[in-house]
């Protein structure tokens, strides 16, 4: 009995790559903490703690300092909400909506050209195309895949920062930044979904003479729509979250009013708006959760 267990243990699947990866990860974590330039003592120094104490004093709404009462807090919060909170929340949702729809519109065509089963010379036919055409399509698929990586490698915040200087302070920099980054992610996820598709119906259509475009629009699209919608709403959640922040660069979403409060040293308003950002994210998550349930039940 114990001999069998020993044999099993000795013959367990092992991978050198994984061992090296785990070792590297451990070394990296150790190096990061040792040489990352962290000064824990400084954080607890007298000066820092005095600063913290002042901050904790200033996050209490100005009118309530000294004589705190709950009804006063509620009326203060309501005033902040009607003053700018509701508008900021609506603008944040609006930006995230435009961004995710734009991202999906960009990602769709890219995913079709990055999927290894559709982006071949003769998709869904048992015979390969001519070597030259096969090579061209392999280049197209690889290039599209690489382009998708480039789209998602740069963070939204950096895109928004660069676009803001070029386009000026409208909501477009934030929308485009979110759309660029998320189209890279949706394109990758979409391509993977297409690669996992059931090929039977597609082979049948292809043998009846359907071309690449009609396959993509009339067969692949309805087949992957459910999965794609789930990804769409997952990414929308992340768009809402990022959209709250992007305003910090220039006036469009909630972040703008947070920066504004920060530079006026009104930390009470700043903290309130940050908490509002949390509520916005949770509302977005909830709407997405409901809609994903709807899509899942329909498919």
């Amino acid at each position, binding site marked *: 009995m114990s001999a069998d267990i020993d044999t099993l243990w000795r013959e367990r699947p092992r991978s050198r790559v*994984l061992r090296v*990866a785990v070792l590297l990860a451990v070394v*990296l*974590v150790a190096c*990061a*903490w040792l*040489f*990352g*330039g*962290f*000064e*824990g003592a*400084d*954080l607890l120094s007298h000066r*820092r703690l005095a*600063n*913290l104490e002042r*901050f904790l004093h200033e996050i209490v709404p100005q009118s309530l300092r000294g004589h705190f009462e709950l009804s006063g807090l509620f009326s203060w919060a309501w005033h902040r909400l009607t003053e700018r909170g509701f508008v900021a929340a*609506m*603008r944040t949702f*609006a*930006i995230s*909506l*435009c961004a*995710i*729809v734009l991202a999906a519109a960009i990602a769709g065509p890219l995913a079709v050209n990055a999927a290894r089963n559709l982006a071949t010379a003769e998709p869904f036919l048992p015979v390969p195309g001519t070597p030259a055409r096969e090579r061209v399509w392999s280049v197209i698929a690889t290039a599209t895949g690489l382009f998708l990586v480039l789209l998602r*490698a*740069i*963070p939204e*915040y*950096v895109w928004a*920062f*660069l676009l803001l*200087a*070029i*386009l*000026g302070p*409208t*909501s*477009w920099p934030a929308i485009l930044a979110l759309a660029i980054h998320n189209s890279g992610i949706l394109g990758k996820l979409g391509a993977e979904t297409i690669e996992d598709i059931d090929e039977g119906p597609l082979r049948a259509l292809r043998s009846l003479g359907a071309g690449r475009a009609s396959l993509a629009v009339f067969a692949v699209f309805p087949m992957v729509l459910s999965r794609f*919608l789930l990804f*769409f709403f997952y990414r929308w959640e992340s768009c809402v*979250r990022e959209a*709250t922040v992007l305003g910090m660069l220039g006036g469009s979403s909630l972040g703008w009013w*947070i920066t504004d409060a*920060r530079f006026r040293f009104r*930390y009470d308003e*700043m*903290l309130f708006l*940050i908490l509002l*950002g*949390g*509520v916005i*994210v*949770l509302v977005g*998550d909830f709407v997405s959760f409901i809609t994903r349930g*709807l*899509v899942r039940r*329909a*498919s």
Partner: protein
Amino acid sequence: MAERTRRPAWIGTRGRVLLLAVLAAFWALWFLGIGPSDLVPNAGGLRIAKRFFAAAFHPAFFTENGDALLPILLTAVWRTVAFATAAVSVAFVAGIVLAFFGSTAWWSPERAGGETSARGPWLFRARVTTYVTVRAVTAFLRSIHELFWAVIFLAAFGLNNLTAVIAITIPFTGTFAKVFSEIIDETPRDSAEALLDAGATPLAAFAFGLVPRALPDVLAYTMYRFECGMRSSAVLGFFGYDTLGLYIRQSFDETQYAEVWSSLYALLMLVLVFEAASRVVRRRLVA
């Protein structure tokens, strides 16, 4: 309800959801008061755009003053990686602990009936309370963006590298906890059930029946999250921390666009190299 044959609808639930999303986006454009015409930059913006994109083909290797850029950027890259690594290492552990209490698998509610009668309902109630509390805490941690935490810490403490790590750690812990508990709850339970039937305690069944099967997904997600962490830590540079974002912002504000591209290429290389490496590891994990 009796089955009836119906004509196929022109548009089903999925189509309706899609249509609604597109209509909502158009409403949003109207609400924001912007249109396609706002996408055309003015003369000043156009000049910046031309100079900026022209600089993409000749990134700087030296600063204005003639200092070599490479050591500066390598330090910034290391800081970016170090912040992300430190944050993810803590968030991973904290996320696993929270995910454990935020998943139903280890106390298996479908089996809790017997346990309830044997050990009293208070244990069951305590576990449900833990579950709900942990889920709520997780949602709160996740909901506030790392840049907002950074802004709070900057106001509370001033600039200190450790606060950047904590700022990333807090929301990442929430996300790890949420995703890990979902992975655990979605992992097939048959091996754990078999262990339970053989007389194992729920905790042992969890540790030896469920965790090993969930591990590949957990690790793959952790690598993805680490990539996100590097992006976040780069962006924290915009707020004054010594990571890549600091150099992107400074160079751009000084209109040194060639230097901006050097930083952008450094960030791009960092993400691309990590993504290539993680693809190799992930292939071994899933196989």
